């Protein structure tokens, strides 16, 4: 169980803007952290610096207390014991599956190497494919071999560079689960870089949201989703309903009704005007009785597993999204009642983005 510590990391390429601006990141031993961010936020650079392919301009990278990159220190990639799984596998096209996997096992005797390859193929669910060549494998199988190859030398840290990017969405889920299981089995510390928020939330123990070369928030998937550190994060990690609110005594008054605030250090004493964050699944549709806010359905979007209804409510410039499990018997034009469940996160002194510019930007970056 080896901890990865990144402190004050900066990186400026020869010409141009800094890519990393004092990035801090701790990944506890045996934990999988997803680094989530829009393209250009520096997440790939971070990965390549940890791996030792790129030299940072400043800051340190340490694994298990051993400084790998820092002032006056630059451990070569081959001495770092850090495995990496590249976007499309980057298997050696001239080597068989078995020889790809044993590539990093130079210290072992030949029979031991073969045994280890078999063990890893078993682990990634490809037993018996030792003799295949990379081009004879499907994209998903190639990624599994890439994972086995990275794990073979028992690295203390494994890095994933958008490993599921090139795969069909139907294959991603299975591979994700297998990656998690394999990591658990080996106990390696892992960092997974992705721009896909669903992937980050579902696969990782903790999520670090990167924006413009800094970690904007680092927490469990639930924290990042339920209590985003900023409205930008709120919009980036999921659909956000941001409404103007005035808070008093832990309760926010919004055009959608009263809602208790999530209690954490940041928001407890925040009385006054600001913005409240709700998630579409926190809103419930029902009878338009006294306890509910009245609204009118403007649009219905059916997604299969759920349905999103857009409801326009008096006092709000824009319709709010309501997520409802399963199909919905409403049609545009119907009036409905709206109630809130759970708690809201409050951003004091911040008006909700009037034209939703901030969330639109975050959404646009997320979609990419």
């Amino acid at each position, binding site marked *: 169980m080896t901890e990865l510590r990144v402190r004050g990391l900066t990186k400026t390429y020869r010409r141009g803007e800094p890519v990393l601006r004092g990035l801090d990141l701790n990944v506890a031993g045996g934990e999988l952290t997803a680094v989530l961010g829009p393209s250009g936020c520096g997440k790939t650079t971070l990965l390549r610096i940890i791996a030792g392919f790129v030299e940072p301009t400043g800051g340190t990278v340490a694994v298990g207390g051993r400084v790998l990159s820092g002032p006056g220190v630059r451990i070569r990639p*081959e001495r770092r014991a850090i495995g990496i799984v590249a976007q*499309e596998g980057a298997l050696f096209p001239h080597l068989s599956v078995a020889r790809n996997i044993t590539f*990093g096992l130079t210290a072992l005797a030949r029979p031991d190497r073969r045994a280890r390859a078999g063990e890893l193929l078993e682990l990634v669910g490809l037993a018996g494919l030792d003799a295949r060549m990379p081009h004879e494998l499907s994209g998903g199988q190639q990624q599994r071999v890439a994972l086995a190859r990275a794990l*073979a030398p028992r690295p203390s840290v494994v890095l994933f560079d958008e490993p599921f990017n090139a795969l069909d969405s139907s294959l991603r889920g299975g591979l994700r689960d297998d990656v998690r299981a394999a990591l658990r089995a080996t106990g390696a510390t892992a960092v997974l870089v992705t721009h896909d928020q669903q992937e980050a939330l579902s696969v990782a123990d903790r999520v670090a949201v990167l924006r413009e070369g800094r970690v904007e928030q680092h927490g469990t998937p639930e924290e990042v989703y339920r209590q985003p550190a900023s409205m930008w994060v709120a919009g980036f990690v999921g659909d956000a309903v941001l409404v103007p609110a005035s808070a008093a005594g832990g309760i926010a008054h919004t055009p959608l009704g009263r809602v208790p605030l999530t209690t954490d250090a940041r928001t407890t004493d925040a009385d006054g005007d600001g913005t409240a964050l709700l998630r579409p699944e926190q809103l419930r549709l029902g009878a338009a009785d006294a306890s509910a806010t009245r609204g009118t359905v403007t649009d219905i979007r059916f997604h299969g597993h759920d349905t999103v209804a857009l409801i326009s409510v008096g006092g709000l410039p824009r319709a709010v999204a309501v997520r409802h499990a399963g199909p919905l018997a409403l049609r545009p034009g119907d009036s409905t009642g709206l109630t809130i469940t759970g708690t809201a996160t409050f951003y004091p002194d911040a008006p909700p983005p009037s034209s939703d510019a901030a969330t639109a930007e975050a959404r646009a970056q997320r979609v990419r």
Partner: protein
Amino acid sequence: MNVPSQSLFRAGPGEKRRAPAVSRRRRGTSEGPRMSAVLAVPAAVTAAFALLPLVYLTVRSLEHGFGYAWDIVADGRTAHLLVRSLSLALVVVAASVLIGVSLAWLTERTALPAPRLWAVLATLPLAVPSYVMAFSWLSAFPSLAGFRGAALVLSLACSPYVYLPVAAALRGIDPAQEEAARSLGHGALGVFLRITLPQLRHAVGGGALLVALYVVADFGAVSLMRYDTFTRAIHTSYRASFDRTPAAVLSCVLVLLTALLVLAERRARGRARLAGTGRGSPRPAERLPLGRLRGPAVGWCALVAGAAVAFPLGSLGYWIAQGTSATWDPAELADTAWATARLAAAGAALTILLALPVGVVAARHRTRTAHLLEQASFAGHALPGITVALAMVFLSVRYAYALYQQWPLLVMAYAMLFLPLAVTAVRTAVLQAPPELEYMARSLGRGPLGTLRAVTVPLAAPGIATGAALTFVVIMKELPATLLLRPTGMDTLATRLWTHTGVAAYAAAAPYALALILIAAVPSYLLGRHR
């Protein structure tokens, strides 16, 4: 986002095209692992080796003082030679780019009948030494002597230097790009001009540079065509007088000229890498139907093949038919052929060995040092064989007399002469291997040398083998350095051919020319067939 299922199978490890081009370029250039000593030291040795003749030339040039050397440079005759060499190079480059690119496109991308045959024929001029081609044309049309003849013969002889890299680059371009352009409403010609051609510019530029260097350094063809360029003037000057300084000074001017050519190619190539062209595409491009242009297309291919291959062979056949068994000895021919092949094999092996570190450095590092190392290794092609030979004679007599008039000296001269060819081949081959795989190898615990051995070299092996074959071919054809450096009593096919031609014994020379063509055709044939 749904990825079409097809791309699953196309997501081979060799292709990494999805990452944004800008960040990839950054990563691959200055930000990779530093140049390690394992590469830097041998590359520096190669560069120093390649620069040896140049050092000798400078020493010889200044032996009688700077003023004396300057008088030779300032002489009007030097400017005259410069104009003659440059105008010939310009015409030959234009013609061989036209021939090379058109044949590459026709054989790789169009529904030309028998494309493999034309591909082989397009590479065959490599096996016809320029002086043999000059001899064959001149013996039939004596009026060709001069600029026209030299330009015709050199264009035909040099076109494979453009054809081979361009054909390889065409095979490397993902046809999906061209299909996308077609679906966006561009015609075949528009796609070629806007999508394909820009991606070929490294291949065309590299090939054109080789052609220009070849023309400027050619000795045999221009001598036979009696067209005075630098090389012929240097040779005449060396042979004609005891004072070797003018020959050395003129060589220095020639080297300056080639250095400028190398710099021009550098600028054209810019900072761009072979972005988007992976190691061969997973599926070949659809061939474009030629329609009514089929006839002219075949006619063009046939015209080039006829002029560059069939005509010289026919001419030689004529001279052989003129001869009798008394004019040549088959056993002697066999012995000479064997000796030539052994020399060429040793030369090619040494050349590739020396080119390897420089080629890898040039492909992977875009630093000032890498530029200097690569350019230094290009010195050889700028030096006419005669001057490299002179340098070796001078150095061996003074510092290593045991080597004087021994075959290792000749092999070293070959390596000096043909390093540029091998370095270009190695660099191109290494560029085709994604740097990502080297990063993987490093992260799996291999050091720089281990990565080179286990990943870079095996992936680049086909390209390096191509380079070795090319080097073998050009060494077999080498004339001026062999004439001067061969051990006493040892003859190569080229020197025997030269000797016989010198006394107008065309019938006796013809079998050697034919043998030279046939032996050298084997690697050319493999190049054309083996992809």
